[in-house]
């Protein structure tokens, strides 16, 4: 598969190496630099949604997560981020339908928060909310060529000041993303892929 374009939205993942890891699969990764948390929810109309300025795209990666900082995230932040994610998915679907593209929407969620992190209740709430949002949207897309899936990645913290909060294994992420972007994966919809190298085995998934 060649010549596919992905847009990544969100500040939950350091993508410096992900773009390089996707290149061998013929996937170009663009990012929307603004963090989901840092701005007001996206406008309702797709015309002013940042996605509309990204050019034609085949898929959207949504990577919401709060980055540790001196001021922890608040419940207002959580509400803003979830609303932004909703608007982003809505804009992506509208774009896919308008262009008759079998688009892919993929959530990227950190494993610790998704499985339940005792030190990070807000990110755990965010991850749980995203899982359920994606399940519901997948159901609604069932009769369309659009698929909606979630990839849970093993995150490790990054201390560098300019890095995103966490980094997944870029090569591991890239291969799963490339698979989900393939034309043969229409039957994979509403699924959650735990790419945690087995760290979740023996634990109930949310």
């Amino acid at each position, binding site marked *: 598969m060649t010549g596919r374009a992905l847009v990544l939205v969100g500040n939950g993942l350091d993508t410096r190496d992900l773009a390089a890891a996707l290149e061998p699969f013929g996937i170009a990764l663009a990012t929307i630099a603004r963090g989901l948390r840092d701005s007001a929810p996206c406008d309702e109309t797709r015309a002013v949604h940042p996605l509309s300025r990204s050019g034609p795209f085949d898929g959207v990666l949504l990577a919401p997560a709060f980055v540790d900082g001196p001021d922890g995230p608040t*419940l207002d932040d959580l509400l803003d981020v979830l609303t932004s994610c909703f608007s982003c998915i809505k804009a992506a679907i509208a774009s896919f339908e308008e262009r008759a593209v079998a688009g892919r929407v993929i959530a990227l969620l950190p494993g610790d928060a998704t499985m339940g*992190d*005792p030190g990070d209740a807000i990110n755990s709430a965010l991850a*749980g909310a995203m*899982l*359920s949002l994606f399940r*519901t*949207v997948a159901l609604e897309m069932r009769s369309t060529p659009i698929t909606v899936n979630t990839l849970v990645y093993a995150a490790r913290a990054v201390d560098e000041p300019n890095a995103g909060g966490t980094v997944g294994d870029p090569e591991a992420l890239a291969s799963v993303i490339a698979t989900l972007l393939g034309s043969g994966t229409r039957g994979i919809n*509403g699924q959650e892929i735990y790419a945690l190298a087995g760290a979740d085995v023996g634990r109930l998934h*949310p």
Partner: protein
Amino acid sequence: MTERPSGGIITGAAGGIGKALTLALAGAGFDLVATDLDQGGLDALVREADGLPGTVIGMAGDVRDRDLPLALRDRALTDFGGVGLLVNCSGFLKDSRIQKMPEALFRQLVDINLIGPLRLIEAIAPVMQMAGQGRILSIASRAWLGNFGSSGYSCAKGGIVGVTRALALALAPHGITVNCIAPGFIETPMARSLPPHILDRVLKAIPVGRAGTVDDIAALVLFLAGAGSGYITGQTLVACGGRSISNPIASS
């Protein structure tokens, strides 16, 4: 954890499920501060609870009001001497496919069904930590598994499930359990207002062949609120008549 905690708080207390939970808990001796948007409904609830072993105090409020959690906490502390039980039962449901759902509606659904309960937990958990015991219960929904047309509601309920897992781990060393219940289709006034053909279709998708009752949920809450459930935490108990393991959409 004693059989009867020092006091409890329940939100959404005048609604279909909330009312049943309040009466069941008061019947079992729990003293409760009960809140709901519906002042008239709360008044009726307090009257109905009169004479039960537990006391029910009504305090009208909106879970989106940032001052409500502390006001409820203070009332429970003043009248009952503590808060050993929190039941998040407030809820708001309005469905629409994602393409047609306005952003404002999505935000409202998440605000009421997720952010409101989290504000309550944020206010009450420290009191329980100081006491070294407590039960936090939230009424989630089977929609957490995904439900056509319910992107906002489902998203919020998924958030409840996610935070339940995290807080259960964080609060377990303090003697506090955190669980949630995910009801399926429950016979409430809202459910009875569905068009007959939709109702019929939903009922056909329930393996046990009936809608759930508010008493089904009350029995679970009584168990999880009591001393016998101290080894259960971080769980989502799905009470849906088997719908979550069958095809949720029955053929019409």
